[in-house]
């Protein structure tokens, strides 16, 4: 059975098409894996019955040759996506018990493509965090954590998604990325994490964190699997005013198109003081691989890079403070009873939101409040403009940009909780592209000294996901990263 878990999504699709195995068999193998990896705390809601039902329906469609792109493939869904009749909490106490009456656009597309829902995956509360430790359900454990060693973070905010794909509890998973919430956990768990261009996937039905930054994306074990999944997820949705009405380029073909003749930008500002030497070495190795594959390296400058994090930590909390005002105990979600309406609001929101969420709401409220709007929010949106222009300038002369995905490998759970800023620094390489709305991917490319996975990030211009996949495909081929984590389902520990 466990051999099924070793297949990539593309391979599994081929196997289903050729009737080598059924979706029910594949799904059952993964359900067993879900059970086996429960100690990793990846799922917050398991939907085994629904999964088998959907798998049986997939088998019926496969038999009639009506199969969709993801027909019969077991998927995990970050608990930020609203799923009809399946509890959706954003891993917050304030939404415990909330059962949406609607299906998010992205998940709807996935079910239309034949995907099988395995359950809802752990994440940081309202996607606010870089270690998945703000989840009301507790953090997932990185499957790369060694026996006897400290439990490592799977990254955040989509930690459950990254961990579940890495531990082979699901074949593919959705994530959302606001400042790095797909790319950073993917790097920490040794899987591929893709954040498409802002506007590529509809935000309709995804619990909002920071509306101008949130974007859904994919977790997979290979670059080709990511391209396959994105093909199913992406698409214009008239219910989201920021959804782009542009066709997705042929990403699946791009994966194997090679990088011959491509110009790859290497941003000088991404060399940081105190950077892990292994990360620096991997970055240089990545550049070498691309040159060997026929690409040309071009030094580029993104001068406002150092301001990206402070800029992000104004804009995201400001938007969040407003987006999270709807959790007030009136129409849905937690209510803590009190005498007056105002007391009910305060009691509900204090009990319902965790510490980090409360902190960001307060920061955001302050940044927007009278007298500070210009100094903080407006200033940040101007700096954001400059950051976007930096990239525009760079992409006038290069096809893609290569950077490290994270400044370090996965760290131990609990090790960075004292100081919020230390935690925020995790997003240093991923946040600039988020602010500019650019597509970016994290590809596992090597190991740290401690034997933990490290990722490289590829960025491209807006709506040029095909370029991202071209470069990512070349890196993947050169790196040959096929290691499974020690705590993956089916691995001997």
């Amino acid at each position, binding site marked *: 059975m466990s051999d099924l878990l070793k297949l990539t999504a593309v391979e599994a699709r081929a196997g289903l098409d050729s009737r080598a195995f059924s979706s029910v068999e594949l799904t059952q193998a993964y359900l067993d894996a879900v059970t086996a990896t429960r100690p990793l705390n990846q799922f917050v809601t398991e939907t085994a019955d629904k999964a088998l039902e959907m798998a049986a329906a997939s088998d019926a469609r496969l038999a009639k040759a009506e199969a969709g792109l993801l027909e019969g493939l077991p998927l995990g869904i970050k608990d930020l996506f609203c799923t009809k009749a399946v509890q959706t909490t954003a891993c917050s106490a304030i939404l415990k018990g909330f059962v949406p*009456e609607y299906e998010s656009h992205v998940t709807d597309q996935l079910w239309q493509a034949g995907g099988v829902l395995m359950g809802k995956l752990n994440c940081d509360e309202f996607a606010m965090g870089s270690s998945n430790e703000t989840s009301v359900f507790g953090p997932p454990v990185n499957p790369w954590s060694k026996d006897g060693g400290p439990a490592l973070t799977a990254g955040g905010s989509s930690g459950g998604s990254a961990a579940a794909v890495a531990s082979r509890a699901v074949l593919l998973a959705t994530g959302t990325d606001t400042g790095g919430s797909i790319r950073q956990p993917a790097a920490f768990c040794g899987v591929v994490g893709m954040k498409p261009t802002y*506007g590529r996937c509809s935000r309709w039905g995804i619990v909002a964190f920071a509306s101008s930054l949130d974007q859904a994306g994919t977790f997979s074990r290979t670059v080709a699997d990511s391209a396959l999944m994105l093909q199913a997820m992406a698409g214009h949705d008239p219910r989201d005013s920021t959804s782009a*009405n542009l066709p997705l380029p042929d990403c699946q073909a791009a994966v194997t198109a090679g990088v011959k003749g491509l110009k790859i930008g290497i941003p000088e500002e991404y060399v940081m003081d105190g950077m892990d030497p292994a990360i620096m070495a991997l970055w240089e190795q990545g550049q070498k691989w691309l040159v060997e594959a026929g690409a040309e390296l071009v030094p580029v400058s993104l001068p406002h890079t150092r301001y990206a994090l402070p800029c992000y930590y104004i804009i995201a909390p400001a938007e969040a403070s407003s987006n999270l005002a709807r959790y007030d105990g009136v129409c849905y979600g937690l209510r803590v009873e009190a005498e007056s309406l105002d007391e009910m609001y305060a009691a509900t929101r*204090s009990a319902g939101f965790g510490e980090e969420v409360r902190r960001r709401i307060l920061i955001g409220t302050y940044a927007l409040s009278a007298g500070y709007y210009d100094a903080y929010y407006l200033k940040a*949106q101007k700096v954001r403009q400059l950051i976007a222009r930096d990239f525009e300038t760079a992409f006038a002369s290069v096809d893609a940009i290569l950077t490290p995905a994270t400044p370090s490998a996965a760290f131990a759970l609990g090790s960075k909780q004292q100081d919020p800023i230390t935690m925020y620094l995790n997003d240093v390489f991923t946040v600039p592209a988020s602010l500019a709305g650019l597509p970016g991917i994290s590809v596992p490319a090597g190991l740290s000294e401690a034997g933990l996975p490290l990722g490289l990030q590829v960025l491209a211009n*807006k709506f040029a996901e095909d370029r991202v996949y071209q470069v990512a495909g070349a890196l993947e081929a050169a790196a040959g990263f096929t290691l499974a984590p020690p705590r993956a389902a089916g691995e001997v520990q």
Partner: protein
Amino acid sequence: MSVDKDTVKKIARLARIAVPEDQTETLAGELNGILNWIAELEQVDTEGVPPLASVTGHPLPLRADQVTDGEQPESVLANAPEQASSFFVVPKVVE
């Protein structure tokens, strides 16, 4: 720009988040830490730079004036903490 205890109370009240008296000091310190870090932005010359309005660059799409939704009070109220006769119910509001 620095946040004192009173400011913490004011913004907590605006955000409808109860902050216990004994935590206002700690929270003020934390917020100041973050704000000092954010203050780095002051160094950036943004003279004449318009704020970013949208990263995608397309104009606001308009929808046709048609009734396509609603008439589903059961769905609207399905997750209500308290309801009566298809109304949401809250503690009495005094205007």
